[in-house]
């Protein structure tokens, strides 16, 4: 089997994961597509280094690096430092979110409103929090995997997650208040 077909078999199935991460980090379809193409070319060049490790986190580390290089060049303002040493976000009580599972029109409307709200609030989080939330909540990666991808200790992953969730919750609540 050629190197290309092995690469296509092992790495290409994670195209959605790559695109999802790039899309959340660049916040734009076009840019995410460019970053993903670049990341796949890099991944193919370094394919030998994958050796037996899990392909998805390995690829996502490359996608993340490519995203950061892209952000440095095109949107340096997005790359704010995080204060990881600071206290965790306070446990703000959240008003009980409806978690409807039925599919009557009202529920569907509410769900799509939630979706918009959550998407917007998540997009506006600083990239360091946004990426751990996307990897944990949407991509369902483990703390260990996220730590390896982002090159930070697992403890920092956890504190960024907790803090990011807190910030997200606050952002969503303030949006809901404004909307009502």
């Amino acid at each position: 089997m050629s190197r290309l077909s092995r690469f296509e078999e092992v790495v290409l199935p994670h195209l959605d994961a790559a695109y999802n991460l790039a899309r959340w980090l660049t916040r734009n379809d076009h840019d995410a597509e460019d970053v993903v193409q670049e990341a796949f070319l890099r991944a193919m060049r370094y394919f030998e280094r994958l050796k037996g490790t899990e392909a998805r986190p390995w690829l996502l580390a490359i996608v993340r690096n490519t995203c950061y290089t892209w952000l440095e060049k095109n949107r340096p303002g997005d790359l704010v430092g995080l204060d990881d040493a600071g206290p965790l976000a306070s446990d703000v009580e959240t008003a009980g979110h409806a978690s409807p599972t039925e599919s009557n029109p009202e529920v569907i409307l509410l769900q799509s409103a939630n979706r918009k709200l959550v998407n917007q609030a998540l997009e506006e989080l600083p990239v360091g929090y946004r990426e751990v939330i996307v990897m944990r909540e949407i991509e369902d990666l483990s703390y260990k995997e996220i730590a390896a991808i982002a090159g930070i200790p697992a403890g920092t992953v956890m504190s960024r997650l907790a803090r990011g969730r807190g910030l997200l919750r606050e952002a969503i609540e303030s949006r809901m208040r404004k909307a009502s």
Partner: protein
Amino acid sequence: MGVNKDSTPEPQIARDATYYRAPDALRTRVRAALREEAREQARPQMWRWGGMAAAFALVSVMSWNLALMRAGGGEEDRILRDVAAAHVRSLMVEGHLNDVASTDQHTVKPWFEGKLDFAPVVNDFAASGFTLMGGRLDYLDGHPAAALTYRHRLHVVNLFEWPAAAGAGDAAPVALTRHGYVLAHWRRAGIEYWAVSDVATEDLLALARLLS
């Protein structure tokens, strides 16, 4: 999944946030780029040196054809070769580049009237760094084609347009590298576009995006 005592209702991110799936066009584009990369890697390094300057243009065309013959040359290769060879030819002799030389799209566009069975898209993108230089007729992939020329800094870009096959949908820009030249292809509103130059891939894709 929670590791801590945090039992406050969370915004249900997993349920509410969008999982962005890769568009089909991206899948196609990535696969094409990978195939191209694999081909480039498989080929002897010396072919990459071809056509670095206009002075070596002829040598370049010859080595190109040789390299492609060696590569087997499918239909895509044939188009790539046609497009690249047309670019090299246009730069070989002074006066080959444009039949109508003008930076004014309102002069260039009407010049094509009656010469082609479709209306090429002609725009000046000087504000974005691509200054229209003019146009000429060419013949590629078995079609009469509009060739538009742009200047980007010190580089010349050839942009070819011809009508797409009936029913062919839009295709996002894909960029390929061939022996020091960058080629980009996309399809938009029934027109096939091929751009070729020695600019950076990103710059050529920037032009592609202005038109797609």
